[in-house]
C-alpha cells in the first residue's frame, strides 16, 4: 500500500537523517565533515572552503576534511541541515549557519559553545569588533559561531531607467511615498520595465521577511517585532499593517514583478543577472551583496555597473529620524555539539575565517566582512565603490530578534506577505491572521503583546 510506505519513508528519512555517515574510520586518522551551501550562481563559499581544506590538511597531518555541499536555496539548506542534525551519526562537525537559526539550535543542544577556544585565539580579540561578536551569541551569553559575514540592506536603482523616466540622479528618497512616486513614474514613462522589485513570497523565505517586510516595519515609528522592555512579541498593530500596505500597493498597482516572477525561486538571479544589466528594472530593495555578480570574477560580469547603478538608503515611512533604515544579519561558521574532535574542528573554523579566507569569501559574495583587517585591505573594496555606503549603513541598522521562536515568527510573516502579494487578503486581513497565528508560533498568548 502506498500511504504507509510513504509515511515510513518520511520517518526513515527523519530517523536516519538521510544517510548516516561514519565520521571515524578505524585507521586512527580523523575526519571532519563540513557542511555548506552551493548554487551554480553562488560558488563563492565552495571556492573558499576548498582552499581552506588544502591549507588545513597541509598543517594538520592525520586529519582529513570532508566537504559536503548542499545544492539549492537557503531554505533547502536549512531543511537539510536540520534533518542531518537529528542524529549524532549524521550531524556534520562544522557548518555554515545563518545567525537567525542559531538560537533555536542552541535550545536544541545542537551547537557547541566556542568561548574556551576563542579565548586562546588571538584573532578573536584583535580582529572581530564587539558588535559582530554578538552575531551568534546564545541566550546564555556564550558564543556559538565565528562570523564569516555580515550585511546591510537598502535600495539599488538603475540610472538609465531613472534618466528615461525623467527622475533625478542621484536619487535620494526621503519617505516611502518618494519611493512609490518614483516607481509610479517609471511605470508610466518607461513601459516594459519593472519599476520596483522586492521579495515578498514564501518561496524566498527569510529574504522576504528580512529584505522585504522588516525593512519596512523597522522604518515605521516604533515599529518592531519584539518589545525589549516587556520581553514580548508584538502582535500586529498599525506599523505592521502599514508595512503590509506598502507591499500591497506595489502589487495592486502593478509596480512590482509579475506574479510569476514574484513566486519564482530565481527572482534574485533575474534581478541581478538579467534585469539590472539590461535596464529592465528600476529599483530593487535588496542587500549589499547584489553587486558581487557584476564583478569581473562574478557570474555576470558587467563592468559598467559602477556607473549605471545607484544605491541609496531605504527611507523611513515619513522621513522620521534617523531618516533611513537597514537590517543586518549574517552567517557564521559553527561547530556541532556532536563533533568528536572539537579542537580539530575549531582549528578548521579559524582557518576558514582567517584573514586570507575571509577576504576570498567577502570579495566573492559581496557580503560585508566581519574582520577589521579585511575591511582595511584595499583588495576588499577594490572595484566596488558601494562598499563604503553599505558599511556606513551600520549606523542605522537593526538586528532581528534572534530568539529561538524567531524562525517561526518569520514564517508567519511570510504567509502574511504572500497573501497581500497575491491579493488573497487585504493588509488588514493578513495582519489579523498574523495576530491569530502568533501565540502558537512563540509558545503561548502570555508571550504576545497586543497592539
Amino acid at each position: 500500500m502506498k500511504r504507509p510506505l510513504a509515511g515510513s519513508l518520511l520517518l526513515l528519512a527523519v530517523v536516519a537523517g538521510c544517510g548516516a555517515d561514519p565520521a571515524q574510520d578505524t585507521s586512527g586518522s580523523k575526519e571532519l565533515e563540513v557542511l555548506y551551501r552551493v548554487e551554480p550562481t553562488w560558488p563563492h563559499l565552495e571556492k573558499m572552503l576548498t582552499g581552506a581544506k588544502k591549507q588545513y590538511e597541509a598543517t594538520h597531518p592525520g586529519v582529513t576534511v570532508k566537504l559536503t555541499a548542499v545544492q539549492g536555496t537557503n531554505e533547502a539548506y536549512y531543511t537539510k541541515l536540520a534533518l542531518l542534525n537529528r542524529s549524532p551519526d549524521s550531524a556534520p562537525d562544522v557548518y555554515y549557519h545563518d545567525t537567525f537559526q542559531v538560537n533555536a539550535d542552541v535550545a536544541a543542544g545542537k551547537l557547541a559553545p566556542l568561548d574556551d577556544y576563542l579565548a586562546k585565539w588571538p584573532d578573536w580579540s584583535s580582529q572581530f569588533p564587539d558588535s559582530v561578536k554578538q552575531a551568534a551569541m546564545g541566550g546564555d551569553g556564550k558564543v556559538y559561531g565565528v562570523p564569516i559575514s555580515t550585511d546591510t540592506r537598502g535600495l539599488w536603482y538603475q540610472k538609465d531607467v531613472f534618466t528615461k523616466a525623467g527622475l533625478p540622479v542621484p536619487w535620494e528618497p526621503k519617505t516611502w511615498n518618494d519611493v512609490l512616486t518614483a516607481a509610479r513614474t517609471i511605470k508610466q514613462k518607461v513601459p516594459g520595465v519593472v519599476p520596483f522589485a522586492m521579495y515578498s513570497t514564501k518561496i524566498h523565505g527569510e529574504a522576504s521577511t528580512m529584505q522585504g517586510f522588516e525593512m519596512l516595519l523597522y522604518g515605521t515609528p516604533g515599529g518592531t517585532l519584539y518589545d525589549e522592555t516587556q520581553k514580548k512579541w508584538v502582535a500586529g498593530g498599525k506599523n505592521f499593517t502599514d508595512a503590509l500596505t506598502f507591499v500591497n500597493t506595489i502589487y495592486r498597482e502593478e509596480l512590482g514583478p509579475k506574479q510569476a516572477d514574484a513566486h519564482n525561486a530565481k527572482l534574485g538571479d533575474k534581478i541581478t543577472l538579467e534585469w539590472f544589466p539590461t535596464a529592465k528594472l528600476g529599483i530593487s530593495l535588496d542587500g549589499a551583496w547584489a553587486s558581487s555578480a557584476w564583478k569581473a570574477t562574478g557570474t555576470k560580469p558587467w563592468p559598467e555597473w559602477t556607473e549605471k547603478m545607484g544605491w541609496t538608503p531605504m527611507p523611513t515611512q515619513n522621513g522620521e529620524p534617523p531618516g533611513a533604515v537597514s537590517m543586518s544579519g549574517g552567517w557564521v561558521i559553527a561547530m556541532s555539539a556532536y563533533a568528536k574532535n572539537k579542537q580539530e574542528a575549531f582549528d578548521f573554523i579559524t582557518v576558514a575565517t582567517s584573514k586570507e579566507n575571509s577576504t576570498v569569501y567577502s570579495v566573492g559574495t559581496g557580503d560585508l566582512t566581519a574582520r577589521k583587517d579585511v575591511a582595511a585591505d584595499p583588495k576588499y573594496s577594490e572595484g566596488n565603490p558601494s562598499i563604503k555606503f553599505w558599511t556606513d549603513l551600520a549606523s542605522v541598522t537593526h538586528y532581528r530578534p534572534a530568539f529561538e521562536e524567531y524562525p517561526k515568527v518569520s514564517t508567519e510573516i511570510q504567509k502574511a506577505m504572500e497573501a497581500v502579494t497575491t491579493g488573497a487578503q487585504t493588509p488588514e486581513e493578513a495582519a489579523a491572521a498574523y495576530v491569530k497565528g502568533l501565540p502558537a508560533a512563540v509558545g503561548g498568548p502570555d508571550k504576545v503583546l497586543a497592539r
Partner: protein
Amino acid sequence: MTVATAPQSPPVTSPPQRGPARRGVLRWLLPLGPALLILAVFLAGPILWSVYIAFTNETLTGSASVNSQFVGVANFVKLFGDPTFLNSFFLTFVFVIGSAVIGQNTLGLIIALLQRGRGRVTRSVVNGVVIAAWVVPEVVAAACWFSFLAEEGTLNTVLGIQQEWLYTAPMVAVILANIWRGTAFSMLVYSAALSEVPADLVEAAAVDGAGPGRRLLHITLPLIRRSIMANLMLITLQTLASFGLIYALTGGGPGTASQTTPLYMYEQAFRYFEIGYGSAIALVMLVIGALFSLIYLRLIKVEDA
C-alpha cells in the same frame, strides 16, 4: 491492506488437529522469520513511531526537539481548525478526482478501446508515446510541463499569447500534467482487461443490432468492472500521495492555490520544522487512503453479489 471484511467461510465443523498444525506453523514461520523481523523493524516500527509522533509537539530544532511532550489530540484539533489544511484537503480531492478518477482513468480506457483491432505499428507507436510519459521521473515530467506552460513557453509561443498559466490556473496545470504522466498505467490495465473480453460475445451483440455505445455499456464495461475498480483504487492511492510533480511544477503556489495535502505536510514538517504536526497530517492522509480503498473494495463486492 487493513480492510476488515466479514469472513464468509463456512463454520468449522471438525476440531482442528493441534499437533501437526502447530508443527506446520513452525515450519512455515521459521523461514519467514527474518523477513517478518525486517518488516517489523523497517515498516511497522516507523509507522507506529510516526503515529506516536503525531501526538507530540516534536520539532526539528528548538527546545521542543529535545523535550517534546505528549500533547494528546491537540495536533488534530489544530488540523481541523486550520483553514490552510482544509483548503489543501479540498485541493487534494479536486486533484484526485480530476487527474486520476476522471482524467487518467477515462483517457486510459479510451486509448485502450481505440487501440483494439489496430495494426501492430499503430499500437507500438501509441504505446511507446504514452508509456514514455509514464517512465520519465516526476521531476522531469514537471520540468517538461513547466517549459510548456511557462510565460515564454511552448504553449504561449504556439498560441501567440501572453498568459501565466502556472499562476492563473495552477490546479488545471498540475491536473493536466498528472493526467499526461499517469494515463499509461490505466491504459495498460485496460488493454490487458479488454483482451480478455471474448470477441464472439461482442460480435453476437453486434449481430443482434447493438450499436458501439450499447456494446460498450452493456457488454464490455460489465466484463472488465473488476479491472476498473482495481485500477481506480491503485491510481487513487498513487495520486493521493503525489508530491514531486506538484512541488516541482508550482511549489503549491501561488499562495496556497495548488497546495495539496502532501505539500502542506512537507511545508509544516520540513520548512517550518513541525514534525509532530506534520506526522498528524500524514496520519490523516493514511486514514483517507484506507477509506478510499474500503469504498472501492465494497463496490467490487456489491458488483459481484
